[in-house]
């Protein structure tokens, strides 16, 4: 469906990191409110990285 850009495992890594942020909040070690903020920041960062590469 989407252009395949996961050659370097970037999408896999992002998926893993996002789940990790969720896990920390889900299991109560981090405040719920920080979760979405951290996710947004990580997505921004990787999106920027991809655009710089291309």
């Amino acid at each position: 469906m989407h252009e395949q850009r996961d050659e370097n495992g970037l999408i896999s890594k992002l998926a893993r990191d996002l789940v990790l942020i969720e896990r920390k909040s889900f299991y109560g070690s981090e405040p719920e409110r920080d979760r979405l903020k951290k996710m947004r920041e990580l997505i921004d960062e990787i999106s920027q990285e991809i655009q710089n590469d291309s």
Partner: protein
Amino acid sequence: MILNSVTVENFRSFYGEQTINFSTDKKANTTIIYALNGVGKTNLLNAILWCLHGEFSSGFKNPKDVLNWEAKRRGRKSYHVTLNFEDNGAQYIIRRTGGEIDNFKVFQVMWDGNTVELTSAPSLFVNSIIPKDMAGYFISDGEGSDLVVERDGYISVKRSIRDILGFNVAEKTLDDLNKIKSEVRQELKKFDKDSELSTLEDRIQVFDESLVKTRVSLTENKSLLETYEDQLASVERQIGSSSSAVVDQLISQREKASKTLKAAETKLATLETKKVGLIREYSWVAFAYNLSNEALDFIDESELKGKIPAPFNLQLVKDILEREECICGSCIQPGTEAFDKIQSLIGKAADPELLNRLQKARSRLTAVKTLAPQAKERIEENFKEVREARKLIHSTQQELEDVSSRILELDDEKIRSLEKQRIALKNKIRETDRSITRLTDKIDELIKSKHQLEDQAKKIKGLSPRAKVLKAKIDLIEQVEEKISAELIQSEKDIHKILAKKIDSFLEKYLRQDYRVSITSDLKICLQDRNGKPVPPSGGQAAILSFIYISSLIAIARERRDLESTILTPGAIAPLVFDAPFSKLDPKYAPNVARELPKLVDQLIVLMYQDDGKDVSQTLRSEGKLGKEYYFCEEIAGEQGNVEIHTLTFNGKEVPVTKYNCPIDRVVVMEVE
């Protein structure tokens, strides 16, 4: 994880501090705690669950009223539970306080006996040992209260399987990503002056939502189909087990006709495919036939009339004129009559390239002429075979209907009723099959339309740089969503086989050959008797099914302890704490379960009433698995009156488990001597 002890203080029926030291022996790994109903078994189980994760089981009544009544009367405001456990060779203490003060602390016990508090993410630490979404299966009320019984005796185990596979975190991540994606789409609208892109994005979102709904509907239909097919097989087995010779003969006729029908339907499908191939192969011949005849006639006629160049070569004529010499050696001078005659041939001489083309055209047109009869013959033969297959299907369907009518006329109420059920199920299967085809087509169509819109969205020019960044972000989020979803789908597919294997293994251990368990692709399980008839999940059968299922889950969680997946939460190895597991279990199967359960886990804690001839403790003892035994004694401040004193029997000795005229009401934990 091995539980060393639990200490409850002012928690529900337990006034003051009460401690149970569990058996930590590797072989004799089972601790039994006996208690009358309503005295505190569920309270103790919930104390452990609450201490770990701050949550109670669904069966725990009045969860806001936990402080012991006597303690409250004496002015106490808080209750506490302390768990002492070992994990990976290290000792830990978890202490949770509730009531006026909420407090949760985890300590590591050092080699010298001192404790060090784990201040960084204690909840995460506890969840890494036994995740809260899995804890309810290890610390369970034993009767499968989390299993939802659906119609026709099927139990959906999808939720619990997802819990044990650790789906929850990944699913919540998907929810969050969807939220973030919506936010980005909203922001994108601001930069999209002509609303062209946002209109497309809105439409894509509609397709997305429709896809989700259609996929859910397809899964439901597939599961329904499996259920109907299972039921049909069961009904047909029941009809087949009839002792009537007439029924036998009719069933045998039906089986034969069904096979013929299936073969004819397969043949028809092959012939229809072949028909499409033949049409593709020969349609041009049919269309070109008349045209090619006309063209060949035209070529022949033109050649005759000399409209088409004569068959001598243009190059040869040019060479003769250039060399001024004929092929016979005569000299041909320009201006002579011979030279002029030869020069006039140029207008009629054939260009080799033109001749070549003409030959090709003739050969192609001749091929059409040759292929036409062959095409006619092959297509006619295919049409004839299709007609014959359809005729056979029709007559076999008639025969099957005839068999069914004759069964319905038999003087056997049970068989008639089963046949009616069979017809109804056949209709349902046909309908569901059609729905599945419709839904599959709809999904293909939706995906196609969505891709077209996505392509259009990509082509939109003139977006501001910021809008392009936002568009790229949406694209990135969707790729991550696909990545996570794909792993979840694959894990769910893989687990079907693993679960079936585990269930078979526990079925064999607990029940021998009396029952079998069927599992649908949608992860619904059903206990069936030897004839494949679903057994209603009530009473003893539900208890055994629950045991088989919970045992399978625990085994799967154990195997997934060191899982390296990055999306799913790893499994757990934890003690199995069962509340009243044997109460509804058939005495015939209880010893088998008692023999196998301690082998399944490193530590087993069973809360039960005395086993009423089910030989649970006897079996555990004879297998060398029983490490420790406790009982709860209920101390009552009031007079005994006419109430009977309850007793339990240990090693042939009766022990009272209710005492009257005590200073206060409370439950006391006693170790069996």
